[in-house]
């Protein structure tokens, strides 16, 4: 995934951008990571499962060179869950893989983040540390890859 899609889009240009961003962070975090972050919050609302967690397949479509004709790249396993909080807010999650607990916790966190009053606190406690950990992982991986990078231009000069 290109790094640009993980940055927060401008709120005016994309009102759902913030939600898309935190849903992406939750989808990339494991169940234990989310549970650990949620445990630092003073209260966790009880939730009702509206649907799922249930696992299924989605067809991933691709375009050659990003602008060619669309084709079916392949199917991937996805788990989804929707939950409702006592005040009626509904949170959704679609995560890759078969971890129902991750999907449920992600949907619960999504619903909690929809409350404008509590959003800052939940973002601080859950989304920020998860996003930081994911950025650090990406960074470490990029560093490892960069160490084996071959500079073709330099090689021609050395010859």
């Amino acid at each position, binding site marked *: 995934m290109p790094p640009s899609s993980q940055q927060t889009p401008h709120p005016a240009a994309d009102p759902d951008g913030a939600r898309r961003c935190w849903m992406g962070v939750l989808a990339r975090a494991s169940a234990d990571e989310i549970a650990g972050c949620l445990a630092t919050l003073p209260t966790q609302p009880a939730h*009702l*499962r*509206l*649907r799922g967690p*249930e696992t299924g397949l989605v067809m991933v479509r691709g375009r050659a060179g990003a602008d060619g004709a669309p084709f079916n790249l392949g199917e991937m396993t996805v788990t989804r869950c*929707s939950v*409702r909080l006592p005040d*009626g807010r*509904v949170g959704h999650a679609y995560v890759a893989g078969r971890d129902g607990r991750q999907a449920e916790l992600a949907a619960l966190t999504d619903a909690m983040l929809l409350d404008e009053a509590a959003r800052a606190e939940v973002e601080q406690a859950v989304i920020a540390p998860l996003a930081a950990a994911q950025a650090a992982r990406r960074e470490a991986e990029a560093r490892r890859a960069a160490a084996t990078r071959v500079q073709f231009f330099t090689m021609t000069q050395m010859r």
Partner: protein
Amino acid sequence: MTETRFPGFADPVLDAQASFRAVLEAMSRPGRVQQVVVPPELPPGLSPAAAAVLLTLVDAATPLRLAAGPEAAAWARFHCGCPLVRDGAAVVLDPTATLPDLDPGTDEEPERGATLILAVASLEEGAGWRLTGPGIRDTHRLRVRGAPAGFVADWARNRARFPRGVDAILCAGSRIAALPRTVLIEEG
């Protein structure tokens, strides 16, 4: 809008199987009243049994004609993933729908006939309509309160176009009774 505040079955697999069994029993023994498992909460506009039958029978391959308000429409879209249509529906839950204007299928494909889900006030066995036909040994009595006016006359015309025709599932509370297109209804 496809977001709903209302859940589906408490246990999606077992409750849907139990309800499917109840619908199967109801269809194979016309007029016998069966209990379905009902969802823990319901959107406004749907009776418990009608909601259970929708969750059991309707999916993405089943166009649904639903007239029970926007909450119920969003709930059906969310849990069943069905297309909501006006014409050509496979399952119909609309108090204004009458038997003659529903799709009866074709002679080649009579199984394409629509299924009408009809919310009624009550279903009692032992008195009322006299039912005869396949699945009933002699006669079966079913009292239906709250059926639409002219239903029995419409049913006779529906039965006359066999093998084409519309099947009906009557719902009251958490109870259902089915009228497959083969059944003959006599009043009195």
